[in-house]
């Protein structure tokens, strides 16, 4: 992903830009999966590594990515520990995310359709005949209406440019999100530990390595591996018993 920091808000999207939903869908499609809890859980690590590798997101976009990471981590945790009780708000976040991803899938298809036809068959308007100039002013044309009109335009621009600021408040670091989740998962794990006896022992192992993974990512070691966007998953829950390579 080729992401350069840009000075101004309205320049964020370069051609190579990938939004958070796009990244999720790309990762899911690369695994030939459908959008569901399982698929979302399986791409969580990759998604987070990706976000961590991007040190230069514009601040507002970072918020979007981190919030999405948090929701993915919730889904992942829930898939590992079914006993983990999610709050109403967390459940709402998860179902909202799934609905949005479904909608976004359609938008992506619609975009491909439009890209296919946009600009291909131009339909031109009637040519402008050189006007025979004769002066026809109007009642609403005066010095004051002109000054008002321009002041209105300038004021409208200012409100547009102020808007994005309000959203940045919710900014948290991905480390905080992971910390919080690690504590929740550990808590749930202790509570329901007896459920994991016997044949479920394998699952405990998975969860433990998931926690280790969270820890590693926090320290930045995994992110240092620099994943290729469509590349192999080096850490998935089937392989997670082995510690990821780094160094």
């Amino acid at each position, binding site marked *: 992903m080729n992401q350069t920091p840009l000075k101004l808000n*309205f320049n964020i999207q370069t051609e190579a830009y990938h939004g*958070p939903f796009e990244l999720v869908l790309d990762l899911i499609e690369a695994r030939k999966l459908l959008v569901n809890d399982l698929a979302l859980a399986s791409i969580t690590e990759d998604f987070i590594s990706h976000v961590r590798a991007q040190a230069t997101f514009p601040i507002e976009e970072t918020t*979007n990515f981190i919030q999405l990471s948090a929701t993915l981590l919730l889904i992942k945790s829930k898939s590992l520990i079914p006993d983990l009780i999610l709050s109403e708000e967390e459940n*709402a976040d998860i179902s*909202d995310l799934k609905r949005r991803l479904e909608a976004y899938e359609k*938008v992506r298809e619609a975009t491909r359709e439009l890209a296919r036809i*946009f600009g291909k068959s131009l339909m031109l308007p009637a040519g402008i005949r050189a006007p025979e100039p004769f002066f026809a002013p109007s009642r609403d044309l005066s010095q004051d209406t002109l000054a008002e009109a321009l002041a209105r335009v300038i004021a409208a621009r200012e409100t547009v440019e102020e808007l994005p600021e309000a959203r940045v408040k919710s900014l948290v670091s991905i480390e905080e999100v992971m910390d919080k989740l690690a504590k929740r998962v550990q808590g749930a794990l202790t509570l329901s530990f007896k459920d994991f006896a016997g044949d479920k022992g394998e699952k405990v192992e998975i969860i433990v390595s998931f926690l280790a993974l969270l820890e590693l990512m926090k320290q930045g070691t995994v992110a240092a591996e620099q994943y290729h966007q469509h590349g192999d998953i080096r850490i998935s829950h089937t392989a997670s018993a082995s510690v990821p390579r780094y160094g």
Partner: protein
Amino acid sequence: MLMPPAALEALLFAAGEPFQKKQLSKLLDISLEQLDTVIGVLGRSLKDHGLTLIVTDTDVELRTAPEASDIVKKLHEDELARDLGKGSLETLAVIAYQTGGADVECSGTSRGEIDWVRGVNSSASIRTLLLRGIIEGREDEHDKRRVRYSLTTEALAHLGITRTADLPRFDELQDSTRAIVKEKEITDAPTI
């Protein structure tokens, strides 16, 4: 005397830009329903001609037919359509596939709805589309502070189609998107 479809054709040609249906019905002294019929008749009579009608919810415009694209491009080579960036195209798709249809209570798409489905801030893309005259914003009827965006005749002219219903896979891609957005309005969930 000139028949209404011919009068409509003359007016649209003389105006040389999108014409509001409301204003047309006044000038031609017919109701909006009658106007729709007249638009239909003129549209059909333009079959095999080099011109075509582009019709949106609010406007009608006479333009060269999509089949004439190659030949008229020779006239205006310098001002040919620049491609849209990915973000703008995606934003256009959200607006295009949610607009139109007979049963929409509120026509157009708000910025919040676009952001919701794209997962990113769309103000830059909306700005580009506005600057290029591909979308236009109108005040929401229910909430004056909110602006709803819809396609202009210019957008359809770039897509080579005469109405939004002719968008590729319109029913399939539109219905589902709309159903999802409706749901969203009910729950009105927070961002991401």
